[in-house]
């Protein structure tokens, strides 16, 4: 139990580092505050190595802490929208047991950005923001793909060692 708590703490720290790096990258998708979703790598990793419940807990904690440390209340709601939607999509796809890490990560990347777009549209009550959907979808696909390959390597190497 102690070991597990330490393990979760370490994962949270890694996730926060990813958030920090992400907050340093100025990336404009046309909608302010929208993030690339690099932290998804930790979420994918956690889904495979420690299980869904823990992965969800760490993701939410990461979003709240990162929001207080490197963001503002608005970056928290964006991240929650993206984080929760992408988590559900990845969990459902993983449950089918028919797909590899890369597919799960790509789906997560796409839904991460759809989630952020939905939250932004709801906050300003203006659905014309969907104008930015093509950029967001493509970016989600590409980052999801790259993160998936990286996550697959990590999982293959770290499995059984932690």
């Amino acid at each position: 139990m102690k070991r597990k708590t330490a393990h979760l703490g370490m994962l949270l720290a890694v996730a926060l580092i990813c958030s920090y790096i992400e907050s340093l990258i100025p990336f404009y998708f046309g909608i302010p505050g929208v993030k690339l979703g690099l932290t998804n790598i930790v979420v994918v990793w956690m889904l495979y190595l420690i299980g869904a419940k823990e992965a969800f807990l760490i993701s939410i904690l990461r979003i709240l802490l990162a929001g207080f440390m490197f963001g503002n209340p608005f970056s928290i709601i964006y991240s929650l929208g993206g984080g929760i939607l992408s988590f559900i999509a990845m969990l459902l796809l993983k449950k089918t047991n028919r797909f590899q890490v890369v597919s799960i990560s790509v789906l997560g990347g796409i839904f991460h950005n759809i989630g952020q777009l939905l939250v932004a549209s709801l906050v300003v009550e203006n659905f014309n923001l969907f104008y930015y959907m093509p950029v967001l979808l493509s970016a989600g696909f590409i980052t999801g793909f790259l993160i998936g390959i990286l996550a697959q390597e990590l999982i293959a190497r770290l499995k059984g060692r932690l």
Partner: protein
Amino acid sequence: MTRRLGKNDRWLLLILAVICIGICIFFYLQRGEAGAVAKVTIAGEVYGTYTLTQDQTIEIKIDGKVTNILKIQDGTADVTKASCPDHLCVHQKSISRENETIVCLPNQVVIEIEGAKASALDSMT
């Protein structure tokens, strides 16, 4: 775990890529011409519509307080000052084509460019 991509993965990725590309093409074909007016909405309510042909500076006010300053110059609209904590609306590029937007999430302000047709429809309703 040994193979990177199975058969299912290839199909899924192919389908997702086709959907992404399809949506990109669809939006590209629908993309607008140079716009005619900048429409400002606050929390979904229309605040005002301003022609792009005339250079002007608009103070967007909520409850009497100036929240964002919109500057229209040479047919483009830009937010030059804002009261929000993140100032992301100020950092966004100026806009001039139909359907482009500048968003200020904290103030719930959206500035969008509309073409001549859409703005004529708006004034009728």
